[in-house]
C-alpha cells in the first residue's frame, strides 16, 4: 500500500478516492447500523405501542404480547423506553461530538494559525486539560451543575476538546509550514483564500473523524454516567434504564436480566459500535496517523 499524504488539495483527494475503489466494508456496516438507529429514533412514536413515560401495566410484568419486553418498576413499557432511548443517545452523540470539535477548532487550530501569545496560551491550556482526570471530573461537574441533561452533554463535550485540539493543532502547524501554503501566500493569496483552499481540505477529514469518534464515546459515557446516577432522572435513556434495572436487588440472578438489562446494554453497545466502525472505516483514508509509513 502506498502511503497517503495527509493534506492534499480537494481535487487530488477526489481523484485518490475514486482510484481507491469501493468503500471499506467496515464503513458500510457502520453506516447501515447508524442509519437503522436514526430510523428508530425518528419513527419511535410509530413503532412503540406505549408512551415510555406512562404507566401502562403492572410493575415488573414478564414479556407478553402487550408488552414485548415486559414492564419496569412503576409499570412502564420497556420496549417503548428502548425505542425512545435511541433519541436521547443520538442527541447526546451529535451535540457532544459537534461541540467538542467546535471547541477543538477554536482552541487548537485558530491559535496555531494566529501564532504568537495566543498560540502559547492555548497550547499550555491543552496540556493542562489533558492532565485532568476525566471520570472524577465528570462526577464533580455533574454534582456542581445538578442532574441536567444539558450539563452532562456539556461536560462530555468539554472533555473532548483537549485531545482533539492536540491532533488538529499539530496538523494545522504542519499545514502552515507546507510549501504549497507558502507558495499561495507568495502569489498573493489572502488568509481567507488559504483557509478555503488549503486548510479546510487539510483539516476537514480530521474534524470528521474526530466528530465520529467523540460521538461514539459520548454515548458510552452518557450511559455510564446515567448508570451511576448522574443524569436527568425524568428522561428516557438507555443509561437510565440500566440504572433502574440494576437498582433492583439481585437483578443478575433473575430472568428480568434478559429483557431489561440485556436489550438496553446491547442498544448502547451496537450504537457505539456503529460510530466506531464508521470511524475505523474513515480513518485509513482520511487520517493516516496510525498507518503512516516512513
Amino acid at each position, binding site marked *: *500500500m502506498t502511503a497517503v499524504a495527509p493534506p492534499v488539495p480537494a481535487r487530488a483527494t477526489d481523484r485518490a478516492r475514486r482510484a481507491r475503489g469501493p468503500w471499506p466494508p*467496515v464503513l458500510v456496516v457502520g453506516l447501515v447500523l447508524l442509519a437503522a438507529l436514526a430510523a428508530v429514533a425518528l419513527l419511535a412514536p410509530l413503532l412503540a405501542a406505549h408512551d415510555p413515560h406512562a404507566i401502562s401495566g403492572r410493575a415488573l410484568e414478564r414479556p407478553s404480547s402487550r408488552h414485548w419486553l415486559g414492564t419496569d418498576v412503576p409499570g412502564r413499557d420497556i420496549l417503548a423506553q428502548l425505542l425512545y432511548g435511541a433519541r436521547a443517545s443520538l442527541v447526546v452523540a451529535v451535540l457532544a461530538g459537534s461541540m467538542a470539535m467546535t471547541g477543538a477548532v477554536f482552541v487548537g487550530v485558530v491559535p496555531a494559525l494566529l501564532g504568537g501569545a495566543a498560540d502559547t496560551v492555548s497550547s499550555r491550556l491543552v496540556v493542562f486539560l489533558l*492532565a485532568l*482526570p476525566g*471520570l*472524577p471530573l465528570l*462526577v*464533580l461537574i455533574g*454534582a*456542581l451543575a*445538578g442532574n441536567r441533561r444539558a450539563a452532562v452533554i456539556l461536560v462530555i463535550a468539554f472533555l473532548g476538546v483537549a485531545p482533539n485540539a492536540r491532533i488538529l493543532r499539530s496538523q494545522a502547524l504542519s499545514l502552515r509550514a507546507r510549501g504549497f501554503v507558502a507558495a499561495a501566500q507568495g502569489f498573493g493569496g489572502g488568509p481567507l483564500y488559504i483557509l478555503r483552499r488549503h486548510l479546510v481540505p487539510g483539516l476537514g477529514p480530521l474534524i470528521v473523524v474526530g466528530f465520529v*469518534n467523540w460521538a*461514539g*464515546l459520548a*454515548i*458510552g*459515557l452518557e*450511559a*455510564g454516567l446515567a*448508570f*451511576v*446516577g448522574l443524569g436527568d432522572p425524568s428522561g428516557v435513556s438507555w443509561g437510565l434504564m*440500566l440504572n433502574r434495572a*440494576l437498582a433492583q436487588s439481585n437483578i*443478575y*440472578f433473575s430472568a428480568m*436480566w434478559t429483557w431489561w*438489562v440485556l436489550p438496553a*446494554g446491547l442498544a*448502547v*453497545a451496537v450504537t*457505539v*459500535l456503529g*460510530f*466506531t*466502525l464508521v*470511524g*475505523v472505516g474513515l*480513518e485509513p483514508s482520511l487520517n493516516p*496517523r*496510525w*498507518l*503512516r*509509513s*516512513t
Partner: protein
Amino acid sequence: MTLVEPGVAGQDVDQHPVGTPAGIRWSWAKGVAAYLGMVFVLVTVNFVLPRAMPGDPIDGLLARGSAGFSLGEQSRAALEDYYGLDGSLASQYRHYLARLAHGDLGRSIVTNAPVRKEIGRRLPWTIVLMGSAIALSTVIGVVGGVHSGWRRDRPLDRVLLTGLLAVREFPTFLLGSLLLFVFAVKLHWLPSAGAQTPFSGSFNLAQKAVDTSRHLLLPVLVLTVGLTVGNYLIMRAGMVNELGSDYLLLGRAKGLAERRLKYRYAARNALLPVVSVTALQLGFALTGDVLIERVFTYPGLGGLLYDSIGARDYPTIQAAFLVVSVGMVTMNALADLLYRRLDPRTAQ
C-alpha cells in the same frame, strides 16, 4: 533517522549545565519547590471545590431520612458547630491546614469515623486493581504494538489493528456487566462482588491470595481491555516510524539477527511515548474507576469519591482528592525523572 539530532551537540551550554553537580542540585531544588507549590495549590483547590457545590453536608445528612424534618435552625446551628462548619471560610481553611499539618484528615460527616481509616481501607484495593490493570495493559499493548508495527499490513497486524480499534470506545461498564453475568452468575466460576469473601478470617495466606485473585480477575480484565488500545496504537505507530531508519539498514548489513533489530533497536527507540502514556495512566490510577467499582461492588477510592461528593461530605472529599492529586503529581514527577534517564535529550 540518525540517533543524534543535528544541532543538539552544537547548542549553547545552558546557564546551569546539566551534568555538573551544581546544575543537578539546582534543578533538584527547583523541582522540589515546584512540587511543593503544586501540592499546596491542590490542597487549597480541594478545600474550595466541595464548598462551591450547591447544598452542604448538613443538607446531605438531613436528606438521608433521619429525623431531619424536626430539625430547626437551632439544631442545624448545633450540627454546624459540631462538625466545624460554622466559622468563616477563612477560619475553616486555617483549621483545615493546621489539622492537615498534623496528619489529621478529619472525621467523615456521614459515618462519623476518621476519614484516614476509610481511605486506608480502600487505598490498597485501588492500588492492586489499577496497578495490575495498567501493568497488564502496558505489556500487552507494547508486545502487540511491536509485532504489529514490525510486520505492518500482514494478516496479524490487520486483525489486531481492526479488532482493537473496534473495542476502543466500547463502554467498559457494559463489558463488565456482561462478564459478571456470564462468569459469576451463570457459570459460578468467579465471585460476583467485593474484593474478598466476607468472613474469610479463617483462611490461611495461600487461600487468601487465591480468593483475592479470583475477585480481582474480572475487574482487572475489563480495565485492561480499556487501557490496552492506547498503548498498542502508540507502540505500533512508533515501530512503523522506525521501520525505514538508517540504523536498521546498517544493522541488517552487519548481519544482526532480526530479533535483535526488532527488540533491542527499533522497539527501544519507539518506547518513549508509551512511557509517557503509562505515566499518565499511573497518575490517574488512584482515582479508580467509579463505573467498574459499581459493577463489581469493588471497595476502591472511585466509589468513595463518588459517594462523598453525593453526600457533600467535605472532610472525605478533601481527603480523597488530596490522596488522588498527590498521587498524580508524584507520578508525573517520577515520569519526568524516568524520562531524563531514558532520553537524555529531554533533560536539556
